[in-house]
């Protein structure tokens, strides 16, 4: 595995909203994608830096820890990771209204409030061994609750009803 020396990396946001990268004086990449290798267990560590080309990704190397970046660079990389990895974190469950085995969830997430539909919660609301709850809506959008214990008590009670 090629680990990248963060001191050699300069990320920039292009005028077109893309992430570009200069590696020292030698190489420049106009369209970069940063991919978390452990998005659930270590979201800020082991980030693969890839060049987007030909409809696919070509890995340039891996950054061991985003904490190694200077603050501005870190914020830029994390912003783009956030744009690429869209699995909203549910922070509160306002209401779950069920009807004929299909539930509508009104939730607050780290990406704003939203409403989605879940069919058959036994199949689409799951708890991983790491204790993360995943909710899959009928339109295939995924939502996660990384630490269910930190939900407000009422939301926790609603989750309990629908999780198992």
């Amino acid at each position, binding site marked *: 595995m090629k680990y990248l020396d963060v001191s050699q990396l300069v990320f920039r946001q*292009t*005028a*077109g*909203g*893309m992430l570009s990268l200069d590696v020292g004086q030698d190489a420049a990449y*106009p*369209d970069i994608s940063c991919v978390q290798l452990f*998005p659930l267990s270590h979201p800020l560590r082991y980030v693969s830096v890839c060049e*987007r080309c*030909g*409809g*696919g990704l070509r890995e340039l190397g891996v950054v061991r820890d985003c904490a190694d970046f200077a603050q501005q660079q870190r914020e830029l990389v994390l*912003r783009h990771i*956030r*744009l*690429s*990895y*869209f*699995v*909203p974190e549910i922070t509160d469950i306002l209401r779950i209204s069920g*009807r*004929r*085995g*299909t539930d509508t969830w009104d939730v607050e*997430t780290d*990406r*704003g*409030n*939203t409403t989605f*539909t879940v*069919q*058959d919660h036994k*199949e689409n609301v799951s708890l991983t061994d790491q204790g993360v709850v995943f909710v899959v*809506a*009928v*339109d*295939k*959008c*995924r939502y996660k609750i990384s630490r269910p214990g930190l939900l407000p008590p009422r939301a926790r009670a609603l989750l*309990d*009803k629908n*999780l*198992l």
Partner: protein
Amino acid sequence: MRTKNETASEGNTIPARLREFLSKNYASEQLRCAESGDITREGVFGAEWLVVTDRRVLVLSLDEPQPALLDAFDFSSIRGAEAVNLVGSGMLSLTTTEGPHRIISYSEAKSASFTEAADVIARLARGETAQEPARAASASENVCDVCGSKIPANASRCPRCSNKGRTFVRITDFARPYARLLFLVFLFMMLSTGCGLITPYVSKVFIDYIFRPDAATGVFRHASWLPLAALVLFAAYAAQVFLGGVQERFSGALGYRTVYDVRAAIYEKLHNLSLSYFDKHQTGALLSRVNQDTGELQRFIVDFFPLTLESLLLLAGVGTFLLILSWQLTLLILIPVAITLVFLRRIFSRVGVYFHRYYHRRSRLSALVNDALSGIRVVKAFGQEKIEVEKFDKRSASYRDAGVDLVRKWSVYHPLLQFLIMCGGVIVWLAGGQRILANKMTVGSVVAYLGYLAMFYQPVLTLARLVEMLTTSLSAAERVFDVIDAEAEVEDAPDALSVARLRGAIEFREVSFGYDPFKPVLHDLSFTVEPSEKIGLVGKSGAGKSTIINLICRLYDVDKGEIRVDGTDVRRVRYADIRRQVGIVLQETFLFSGTIYENIAYARPDATREQVIDAALAANAHEFVISKPDGYDTEVGERGGRLSGGEKQRIAIARAILRDPAILILDEATSLVDAQTERKIQEALDNLTRNRTTIAIAHRLSTLRNYHRLLVIDNGRLVESGTHEELMEKRGAFYDLVMLQRELSQIGSASM
């Protein structure tokens, strides 16, 4: 100026103020496409609009009262457009003269619509006339016409708007052939319930007539009734038990027969569905539909349906007797009954969570045990027994805790429920006693009343759970009917041709295909294969080689272009004829539980024993078969687990030889065996491929050396073709792959 796409997806009708804005500022331009994204450029939920006219691409925000233009690109500066799939979302990216631009983001739910939009932009940028988006209709199909909700990808109808009444009728349709049985169930239930209703009233006769002495003489005037009353009571009990038993027998037979028919229908349907259906549905979920959902249906017909009918009959009968005995008392006992019902609703929702948690943890524990025991060789090989035991302990403890929690909750609610029911009895004694003392009611009537009251709670408790049980059962039934109603994507055309024997010529004409139509795997692929020609497909993993094979077998139909077999479009030939003449040997050989003979003969069930043995001989399988104690009758075990990889592979080749196909497909057929076994298999393959059109994918490129031609596939496109020598001389993509393989081989040898 509206296009079909404007209303293609849920909530996507162009808002009036956006329409006004466009009319005011871009009046002379023709609208081609408009889609609302659901993620802003900051990555949070929010709408931004993509508008494509014949001259430009616009991105607008409607956060403020007046639409705000976020981006605008003239087609003169646009070089291309691409819908880029990200995790859980996507972005539409434009390549302009100034470089790439991320113009709008959207969640996965909208990726179909934006893929269409990107296609429209790309075509307009190339100067082509953008047609109506080809798949806009399919996007709109995923939204319910009635309630506007999104319909799950694996469902054929909106679960919110599905008519449970209609589902119930469909279940009864399956029961229709057993109408006589249904009538008998109902008849015996009525008789049994009627007998049950007699018994409390007989106790009134005992107390008020037989055991009541004459007030003046003290003589029991109706003493002679005693044997007769006892006989009536005995007969009522006996009839209730006997008739109830007969009814149970009939309802059981009705349920099992009906569900047998449903299960047969769903299983037959699963075999008739296209492979694309199985791509969209997990095997586990389908297994659950065949086993658990039909089981739930069985529970509904065998247990729940008769129980509900019986409860309704009992409720009506007991209610009538209660009112006859004392309508005043009946009004009074409605108070504890109502409290009990409210209490029931509350405890079902509260204790239900604990029950679900208990069952869920139990199933997680059993999944863990299943996993560990299935992989016990791996566990032992890596010495991970301790870790597995620790994992088990953790889950078992969690299961134990769920059980303890459940018992703790239930031990509070269940006695409370019993207490509430008992309160009804206390009220009857108190109020009924007062009526006795006031000579308005007899002791016998109060005792009979208590008897009926005890009977009254059973149907009340059953019916209180009616909605919950009905919802569970009918939802299961709907999932079953979803499969039965599913339509196969690959179907014979009404005028499909029957082809007795193919010559084996294959032609791909500008074929494009993707398992998800919005993510093409093959792009405008064209090539021809002559009859009896041997072709090797070469390329990296994910290049599209296996997809080509799936299309030749007509497991899927192409999205664009056509595939011709012997000059005829495969869609015009009966697919059974195509599949009958295509033999396939896969890398992962699948054998069914059964004998070696049965597995070879699977290709042609009408083959004679001699033909099966000849096929095994040609596949070099015979020599290992005779070394088995039971020869061809040797059981291969689940998935062929009792045979080695090489043995399984040779059985698969024998199976293909027996089929005598015109077209032979070899998909990495020798990649999982050692060199000596490979030689035997190669000999077998030489026998098999003689005089047949053969298309092979091989991991070891050297095995394709003797093939007539090699096609090099990269990213779903044909990049090179020629003989092994020609491609090596060319020093292109094939040469690079061979060199890479040689390097890896040398590294492997050096490290040994």
